[in-house]
């Protein structure tokens, strides 16, 4: 399997986009969830990265940064059986 996260030295000639945008609400939320879950000991930084690296290569390259985080965190929690796969959809149906 190709490893899309392993970018060091890869040919990529697009210029650096210097403009930085502030995170929007949902990005701040997943950023906060990530730090909070780590602080509470549900997983380690290394685990988060391992799950980011497990994302399907095509999906990885088409996801935004925090989209990857959301995917990885969800998968960690499911694998640790802290949440079930259909919990999120059930919650969304309630909204």
């Amino acid at each position, binding site marked *: 399997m190709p490893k899309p996260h392993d970018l060091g030295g890869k040919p990529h*000639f697009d210029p650096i986009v210097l403009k930085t945008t502030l995170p929007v609400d*949902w990005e701040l939320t997943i950023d906060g969830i990530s730090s909070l879950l780590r602080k509470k000991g549900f997983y380690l930084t290394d685990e988060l990265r391992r799950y980011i690296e497990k994302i399907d290569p095509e999906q990885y390259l088409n996801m*935004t940064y925090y989209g990857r985080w959301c995917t990885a965190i969800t998968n960690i929690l499911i694998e640790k059986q802290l949440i079930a796969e259909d919990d999120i959809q059930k919650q969304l149906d309630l909204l």
Partner: protein
Amino acid sequence: MYDNLEDHVSHSHQEPHFDSPDTSSFEKQVEGLKQTLLSKGLITQVELEEMIAELDQRTPFDGAQIIARAWTERDFRNRLIANGTKAVSELGYHPPDDFQSLVVLANTEFLHHLIVCTLCSCYPRWLLGRPPDWYKSIAYRSRAVSDPRGILNEFGVTLDPNISIRVVDSTAEVRYMVLPLRPSGTDNLNMKELVGLITRDSLIGVGLPHSPSVG
């Protein structure tokens, strides 16, 4: 060694934008995840709000305070280079967990440091806040190690060819911060004025501190 990834990367200019795809589905997904965590009692709304506020408070101003102190106190500078984590704890800065440590890299007349995280986005958030978008971008992560001088040019920095560039790759456990050279003509500046010269980019190595006339 770089196997199939080139299939993705070398054709990048034909694809929309790797770093800016559609996000609407994740907005919903994050809300569902948050509600799930709340309903199961794994986190509370107050805890989450406090954490977001805490993350919001960290900015490059924190890192700049540390560097200005290193510029003015030789003993602190030595401690900072010898053991970054321990030295910044004197000033009340602590990593988010026991696994993370800080290494401070001192630039010299002949050596410049550039920080990247090729694998993802590891960054000394507890000293500089959230990383800028370009730090997390595929372009920066891929080229920082192969063409650091080209990267610096894009940031408007041209280094003398006699200055070597050392690129360091961050990990989950080891976060780096650059200790830039103190600009000349700053002998009479106070701490606050010195802090004002220190930019975020100079702490990552893609920029240099302002000179006093500019700052």
